[in-house]
């Protein structure tokens, strides 16, 4: 990989051991993946924040570093709400360690915003290069916003924050962003069904780049749930939706690869697009069957990935003035909540616990429950293994109905 003179000096220790180590990480990854050079990134989002996942080893490593982030850098969700951890039955030892991790990141100039939806803080622009590591945020940035980021690990995202650059490989390069598999869904879907769709097809897609042909037009929130589920049940970092997501229009004329038969079957194909030969027809009944399981939950948890303003409004509306009778959590980013105080107050008045900067997946709090109802395909995938609960998926409205019953 080519380094400029300045980068070479950092690599050789000219600006101290921490930056040297960070540069070594970027160069090693660049060499592994065949990058030609380093490129500047607009922001970094660093995973590996919850004490539940990184433990003492992660804490020690972050604490040993010196330096300051040179680009806007934030974190992904931590293991608790910093203010409300006692109400989450988090023990003091965990809370102290979690606080030490956050302080160690802050000392490096990284903002203690711990969210899986960094795009609600500042929305990246089409074509921006980023170094993000939360899998659902990566999927949203690439797919819905047309920004460019690989799935960074915690250390490499931190390296990008301190150096301001990342290695130019993978999804930073346009030619690597073309779809590899076509997915056709023959019936319209709504709300949480998009998360269920991602849950069902993720394992079949693996780390491919799917392009969806849908019978319905998803909202940004529905795309968020689709991507989050694809990223957790598969390893998807980028997907396209015909006539919906922004990037299809930059693909070149010479890649048009559609035979007439596909068109006759009713595929909607913009003239500047091509469909990969590799195809998956989705069995919509599998998606609907997943949505039809309604066992009685002892915890209803929404906000995975963190709830948007629109989703908070939808939950409040679904309450129709009723108070919840079951334990209900809504997870979202602290700064989004603080900007929408009236909305948060409204949810809390009806008995909902709003938790900031954490979630049911990375917090040990959810381990105390037996059966969880969620509106997220990602939470459905992770909570059984990460929290030891049974999980079912339902629409937001159904979740609230269950909570009020």
């Amino acid at each position: 990989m080519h380094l400029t003179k300045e980068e070479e000096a950092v690599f050789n220790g000219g600006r101290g051991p921490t930056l040297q180590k960070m540069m070594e990480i970027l160069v090693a990854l660049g060499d592994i993946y065949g990058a030609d050079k380093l490129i500047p990134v607009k922001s970094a989002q660093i995973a590996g924040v919850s004490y539940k996942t990184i433990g003492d080893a992660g804490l020690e490593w972050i604490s040993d570093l010196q330096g300051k982030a040179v680009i806007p850098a934030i974190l992904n969700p931590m293991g608790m709400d910093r203010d409300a951890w006692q109400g989450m039955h988090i023990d003091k030892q965990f809370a102290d360690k979690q606080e030490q991790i956050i302080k160690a990141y802050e000392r490096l100039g990284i903002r203690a915003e711990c969210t899986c939806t960094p795009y609600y803080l500042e929305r990246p622009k089409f074509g921006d290069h980023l170094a993000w590591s939360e899998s659902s945020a990566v999927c949203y940035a690439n797919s819905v916003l047309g920004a460019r980021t690989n799935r960074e690990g915690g250390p490499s995202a931190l390296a990008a924050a301190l150096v301001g650059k990342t290695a130019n490989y993978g999804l930073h390069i346009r030619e690597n962003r073309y779809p590899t598999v076509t997915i056709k869904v023959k019936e319209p879907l709504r709300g949480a069904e998009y998360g269920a769709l991602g849950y069902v097809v993720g394992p079949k897609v693996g780390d491919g780049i799917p392009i969806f042909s849908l019978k319905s037009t998803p909202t940004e929130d529905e795309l968020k749930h689709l991507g989050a589920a694809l990223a957790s049940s598969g390893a998807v970092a980028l997907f396209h939706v015909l006539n919906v997501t922004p990037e299809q229009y930059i693909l070149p004329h010479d890649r048009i690869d559609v035979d007439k038969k596909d068109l006759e079957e009713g595929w909607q194909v913009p003239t500047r697009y091509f469909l990969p030969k590799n195809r998956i027809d989705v069995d919509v009944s599998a998606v609907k069957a997943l949505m039809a399981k309604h066992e009685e939950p002892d915890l209803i948890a929404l906000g995975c990935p963190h709830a948007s303003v629109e989703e908070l409004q939808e939950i409040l509306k679904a309450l129709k003035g009723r108070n919840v009778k079951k334990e209900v959590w809504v997870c979202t980013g602290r700064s989004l909540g603080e900007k929408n105080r009236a909305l948060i107050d409204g949810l809390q008045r009806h008995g909902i616990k709003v938790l900031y900067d954490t979630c049911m997946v990375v917090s040990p709090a959810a381990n105390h429950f037996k059966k969880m109802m969620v509106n997220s395909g990602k939470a459905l995938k992770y909570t059984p293994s990460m929290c030891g609960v049974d999980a079912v998926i339902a629409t937001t409205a159904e979740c609230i109905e269950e909570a009020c019953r």
Partner: protein
Amino acid sequence: MPVILKGRTVSRGKAAGPALVSKDAISFLGGVDPKTGNVIEKGHALYGRNVKGTVLVFPGGKGSTVGSYVIYQLKKNGVAPAAIINIRSEPIVAVGAIISDIPMVDALDKDPVEIIRDGMTVTVDGTTGTVELPC
């Protein structure tokens, strides 16, 4: 005359030790005990062996990205491998070796898993990307 294998720098520095060779990939999270250095993954080729002070030779990493931090913890606890040789490195082990100052090379001109025998004293120079074997 010692045999010199040429490869690629992943993590700089030089170290020597007895080779511990595995044909299985290693997941450090859940696969190696960070306190003792024992390989604890059931059914793994190295199950029950200890990585401390060895030149650990294996195809590459697998599993959770938290594995990088487990390598760091091995180092802090004084039970890390002295050096690492992979057939083809992937980010988890590469980053773990870099943050832990463990010399590491990959992409050697001969397959290390085939050519290096268990217990053979091996020297890894991560800076030049070379591995020295006894004749």
